[in-house]
């Protein structure tokens, strides 16, 4: 292996070179052997363009042990994010501190295994929660957020961590925009183990004109805390995904809260103007005002089958 052309900026390479330089007198011959077995890729400076796992180097054609263990750690974190308990009390405290009323409900999937294997149960409320919602709607009026323009639902989905991290700061950005647009908002309805469609039943029960659900997206290795936001006009049980629009990857390091809230508010206003949402709702918001690559194309991404994880199977 030659040194020419190698990038000093490559920490891995620096390590290799240091080991090679000191190889003969090193106190740890095992380390020197490992360094010799691993060939670094000389294009590591391309890493600054992407978070993808590029220029990993190799031993033979295989992944070096350090890279392999990093991968395993990321997988462990993502798995843990799926299994983290949704702490609704924590979120309710944070929202109440902001003066936001909350309802605390649960889907019909009462444990994690059921939730993962039975998406149909995650799409509807438990019997007790359905009764509680009905009671609330019966005993409250407009001042209690019944019959509001927008129903706000929050669920752990596939990553409670994403909701713990992102729901409150996103709502902070969103509510002033909706208020400025002259739109009334329901109490925040927290649903344990909910899928996207559970918002249909909740919003219908509260007689809202439009639903917005914040839901934990399927965690990725590099993003265990990504939040998805889905909007449906005229929500009612049985609505299909074609009727929804989605904003994906809301988190620090992904789509920032303020930009996501602006985008959502734009879509909400468009839906009220058109009196529909989903595939047909044309996204004309100029790209210039936004970070590139927002996943706002709505559920027309479903045909892609492999679509952004947020956009179909949560």
């Amino acid at each position, binding site marked *: 292996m*030659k040194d*020419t*052309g190698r990038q000093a900026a490559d920490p891995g390479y620096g390590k290799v070179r240091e080991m090679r330089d000191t190889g003969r007198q090193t106190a740890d011959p095992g380390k020197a052997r490992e360094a010799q077995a691993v*060939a670094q*890729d*000389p*294009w590591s*400076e*391309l*890493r600054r*363009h*992407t*978070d*993808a*796992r*590029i220029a*990993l180097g*190799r031993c*033979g*054609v295989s*992944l070096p042990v350090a890279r392999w263990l990093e*991968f*395993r750690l*990321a*997988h462990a974190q993502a*798995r843990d*994010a*799926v299994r983290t308990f949704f702490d609704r009390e924590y979120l309710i405290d944070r929202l109440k501190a902001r003066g936001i009323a909350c309802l605390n409900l649960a889907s019909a999937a009462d444990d994690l295994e059921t939730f*993962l*294997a*039975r998406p149909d149960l995650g799409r509807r409320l438990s019997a007790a929660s359905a009764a509680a919602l009905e009671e609330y709607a019966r005993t409250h009026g407009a001042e209690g957020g019944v019959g509001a323009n927008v129903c706000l639902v929050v669920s752990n989905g*596939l990553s409670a961590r994403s909701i713990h991290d992102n729901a409150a700061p996103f709502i902070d950005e969103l509510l002033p925009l909706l208020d400025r647009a002259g739109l009334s908002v329901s109490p925040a309805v927290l649903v344990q183990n909910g899928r996207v469609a559970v918002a249909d039943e909740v919003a219908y029960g509260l007689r809202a004109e439009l639903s917005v659900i914040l839901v934990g997206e*399927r*965690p*990725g*290795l*590099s*993003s265990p805390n*990504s939040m998805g936001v889905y909007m449906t006009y005229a929500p009612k049980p049985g609505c*299909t995904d074609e009727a929804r629009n989605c904003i994906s*990857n809301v988190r620090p390091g*992904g789509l920032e809260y303020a930009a996501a809230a602006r985008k959502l508010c734009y879509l909400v206003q468009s839906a009220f103007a058109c009196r529909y949402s989903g*595939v047909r709702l044309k*996204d004309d918001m100029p790209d210039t005002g936004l970070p*590139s*690559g*927002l*996943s706002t*194309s709505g559920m*027309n*991404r479903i*045909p*892609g*089958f*492999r*679509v*952004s*994880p947020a956009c*179909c*199977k949560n």
Partner: protein
Amino acid sequence: MGEKGSLRRLLAKASSPKSGDVLAGTAAAGDEERILAQMELADTPLTRFLDECVVPYEEDEVTRLIIDTHDARAFEPVSGFTVGEFRDWLLSDNADAPALAALAPGLTPEMAAAVSKLMRAQDLVLAASKCVVVTAFRDTVGLPGRFSTRLQPNHPTDDPAGILASTIDGLFYGSGDAVIGINPATDSPENCLRLLHLLDLLITRHDIPTQSCVLTHVTNTLELIRRKAPVDLCFQSIAGTEKANASFGINLALLAESRDAALSLQRGTVGDNVMYFETGQGSALSANAHHGVDQQTLECRAYAVARYFDPFLVNTVVGFIGPEYLYNGKQIIRAGLEDHFCGKLLGLPMGADICYTNHADADQDDMDILLTLLGAAGCTFVMGVPGADDIMLNYQSTSFHDAAYLRKLLHRRPAPEFEAWLEKMGIHNAEGELLPPGDKPQALDMARCGK
């Protein structure tokens, strides 16, 4: 005949355990019921599949396609068999590559599904390994002894520099001979156009014998072709029923129109297979369009759709949707072997996205097992994703390293045209082995593409 004695029900009960069939309510209640159904299926004549449709002919254009395009003469050699006898024949030496290729148009997808339900893993590997399906566009995939990859350089914001970085990483690991295919984060025609031009520039400037694809809806691709975009392959996800396809926003006529449009560009140099299809067990159920048919049989019906359009590549995305369809590593492995075998048997250039999500009970060991088995089965291509971690779609697939492992272990080589390019670039040696990375100043030169 009532539902109880129906072929549809028999196929569903005989199917290997899948969480999606439990969710749909079609699965056998227990192991004994499943094996008894397999015994009954083994005694079922293949001709019954031509008389009894699992989804009604009148209601479904996929059924009509299957029945109306069935080649009775090709079917003749196996027409006297039961499903069980067909399984035994497939494993015999009489079923060699020419015999299997000649038979393919005579098989319906339901026959392929049925026989696969009677086969264990080694049967699925061995029988598939005897099927040879060769397709071509700017290079030739599926030749014996070859193993290709789709380079999948996705980026969460479709950043061109980020996509280029992952593409270069893959190329220098010998990946990308099946296609360089991007799942765009944003589906707008403007964005897809930008990505198509990026890949086109890279491919033409560096004279890479491969093809590009931006995996957007066919209606977008049609629009892009109208705008004279450099479209190589036309992508679409497809499913096994008319209703499921409708939920994808497609039908057979639209696919035909898209194929004609892609063909009209005449961008292939060594062949004119222009379609790239993706499928996956569970897609019909997720669209609530399964008609009481099990997910593996429906998957095979999607292959009948694919077959009609003479595709360059068909990719079963085997663990993507999640544990509600394939619960764990064991179910994903079984489904991957079934899909690959059935696709090959029906005459398709079958590849697999060997993958899992973080809410499924699966890990890299499961992926390695399926990858190695599919390699032995002669799988046409797998995905190449940097470090196996797709940072846009948030799932784990196979990496550039994984494909290099398989080529090394099984002595498989890339598509011949692409192999010659790898040699010229000093990436592979003449034996088709990955050379040490060395200096590779060309890698950074490539990164300036489009600047």
